[in-house]
């Protein structure tokens, strides 16, 4: 029987790989991918807890993260295209208009 903690550790590791991805990659595409990674990590956690706590709600919530992930990707990519059209670049470091 696989203990719950191993699942939690797994999702934590994946989550943080996602975070590192977000922080260190320069192109927005990969940043969005890393965010997908983080969302998947969260789903793993949900399902793991749902299984070990014998309650279905965990799995139901996965659906909601799913929808959010989908919406997020749609809007993210739309933004990416709009930025690409205006700035001709997808490199995050050049998008610092908000600098003080």
């Amino acid at each position, binding site marked *: 029987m696989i203990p719950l903690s191993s699942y939690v550790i797994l999702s934590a590791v*994946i989550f943080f*790989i996602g975070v590192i991805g977000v922080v260190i990659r320069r192109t927005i595409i990969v940043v969005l991918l890393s965010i997908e990674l983080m969302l998947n990590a969260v789903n793993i956690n949900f399902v793991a807890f749902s*299984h070990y706590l014998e309650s279905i709600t965990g*799995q139901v919530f996965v659906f909601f993260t799913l929808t959010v992930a989908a919406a997020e990707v749609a809007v993210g990519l739309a933004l990416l295209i709009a930025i690409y059209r205006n700035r001709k670049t997808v490199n995050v470091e050049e998008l610092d208009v908000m600098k003080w």
Partner: protein
Amino acid sequence: MMQAIFIYLATVCVVCAVLTVSLRQPVYNVMALLTMFFHVAGLYVLLNAEFLAVVQIIVYAGAILVLYLFVLMLLNLRSESRHLHRQWPFAVLILGSVAAMLVGAMQAGGFGLPTGEAPAQVIQAVGNTESIGLTLYTDYLLPFELASLVLLVAMIGAIVLTKKELIQDHGEEQS
């Protein structure tokens, strides 16, 4: 037996995650992510969430990654030389330590959480999809509707963002 499968799936997921983040070519990142989705689906099966595994593959792998590929092809991005921040080791170090600390924290804390009233056997009997559907449409009806709303907003947003110059500068040539 189960132990081995879990370890296999877990290691592949981690490796793919690392590859998604570190590879130079965006297409290779997407492919790595694809393999990871499959193995996450495997994990779901391991956790008796078959319906979710299927949904995972259809939605994530099928829809979202395809979307990524579309965009990749649309903008024909090539890999650049420096795809990482200059001081990326410094960031990895910090976040790694954060992760390690959190993982350690997870170990310590017990999870005395209240158990629900639907043990694995009952789900097996009723069927995973049916039980999800049952709870989804009773307890979580409102969130469900809101989720649909989120999707609607996302769609409109995506359209408006990308189709903007058509409406705005009708006569101008394509920027």
